């Protein structure tokens, strides 16, 4: 599986300091012009984190760029106790949430937002979806379908899903970042994955963009 981390190489200097650590040290010592080199591998992740919150590409770009500028302004406060990428994504999530509050962007009611987390979720029955999906991502319409499905999830499911399955953060890191318990992360992650499966399987298993819509009133959430 390809993931956003694969593009980020880790070079280690003879002194044991990674290239990233070296860049952070140089920036903190005043060499601020190398900041872009530090954040360049993470731009996509920051944008994806903002998009997960805001669901709108233009707003997500604004929030992502603001987040990177904030990281630039506060790089002196970064301590190497956490990974730089985690710190940056945390800023992006916060910035996107502030942006959402400012813009009152909640126009449509997302799926599952007010669903009871404790109740069990019943996945829908569909024709088998066993396609090896990797090649399908080269199709713009497939990417669009996936992003629309993700955008339709409720905030609390979408954010956790993106942090875990897009950014590959650990369950503990997600729990710490969002200030919720490990159990809540796992419950919401399960629901997010099953809801996405239910949204995507009818399209993916019976041909792209089937004109058949879901039966009315047959949504399990």
């Amino acid at each position: 599986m390809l993931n956003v981390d694969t593009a980020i190489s880790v070079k280690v200097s003879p002194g044991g300091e990674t290239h990233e650590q070296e860049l952070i040290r140089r920036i903190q010592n005043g060499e601020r012009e190398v900041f872009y080199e530090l954040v360049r591998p993470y731009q996509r992740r920051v944008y994806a984190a903002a998009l997960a919150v805001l669901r709108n590409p233009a707003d997500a770009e604004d929030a992502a760029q603001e987040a990177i500028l904030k990281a630039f302004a506060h790089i002196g406060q970064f301590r190497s106790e956490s990974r730089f990428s985690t710190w940056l994504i945390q800023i992006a999530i916060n910035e996107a949430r502030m942006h959402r509050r400012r813009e009152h962007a909640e126009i449509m009611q997302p799926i599952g937002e007010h669903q009871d987390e404790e109740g069990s979720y019943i996945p829908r029955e569909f024709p088998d979806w066993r396609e090896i999906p990797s090649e399908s991502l080269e199709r713009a319409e497939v990417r669009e379908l996936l992003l629309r499905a993700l955008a339709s999830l409720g905030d609390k499911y979408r954010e956790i899903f993106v942090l875990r399955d897009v950014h590959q953060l650990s369950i503990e890191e997600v729990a710490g970042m969002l200030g919720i318990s490990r159990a809540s992360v796992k419950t919401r992650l399960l629901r997010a994955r099953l809801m996405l499966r239910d949204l995507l399987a009818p399209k993916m298993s019976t041909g792209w963009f089937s004109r058949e819509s879901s039966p009315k009133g047959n949504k399990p959430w």
Partner: protein
Amino acid sequence: MVVTCERVWQEVSNYLEGDLDPSLRAALDEHFHVCPRCASILAGTHNVVQLYGDERLFQLPLGFSGRLQNKLAHEMPAKRGTIYGWVVAAAAGVALIAGGIALSRPKPSIPFEVRSPLAKPGNHIPAKLTVLVAGDSKIFHVAGCDQLRAQDGRIRSMPAEEAEHEGYVPCIRCLGKYLSSIPVDFLKRHFRSGAPA
């Protein structure tokens, strides 16, 4: 241990995470062999995790990097003769040369019919930029793009304007990266939608 379908649905995510004790995992494995519905749910959920974990899904908007670099440059304390300044100047020089070549011959501004009904033609792509196309695809690429594949092994090179004329659309990955390396103001100044200004 025997597990019910309901139990499987609760644990399918932990199963994918590898976060189950061995006896429960073995019970689920056994269940998946005899229950097509749960096996289908597992396959679908696994596909979801795989698809969303793929870096190709989240494409940066065109020009994102250029806009970010501009903003960062505004935030930099004013300095003369820094390495950053030289790098920006060199990048601008390269972009100017590319633009100059592209401007040497005007391009028709009539939109061409694209091969994929769902795709849109690209904007701000230098007309003379050499691109590569596979005869059986609908997308053009810059050299070195790992998305360039030809079923029949036939790959042609041509100027971007010709590729667009033939209905090919730009590859989001490689053209996106190429365009984001050129300052967005330069592109806006010299190229409007699909054609030189």
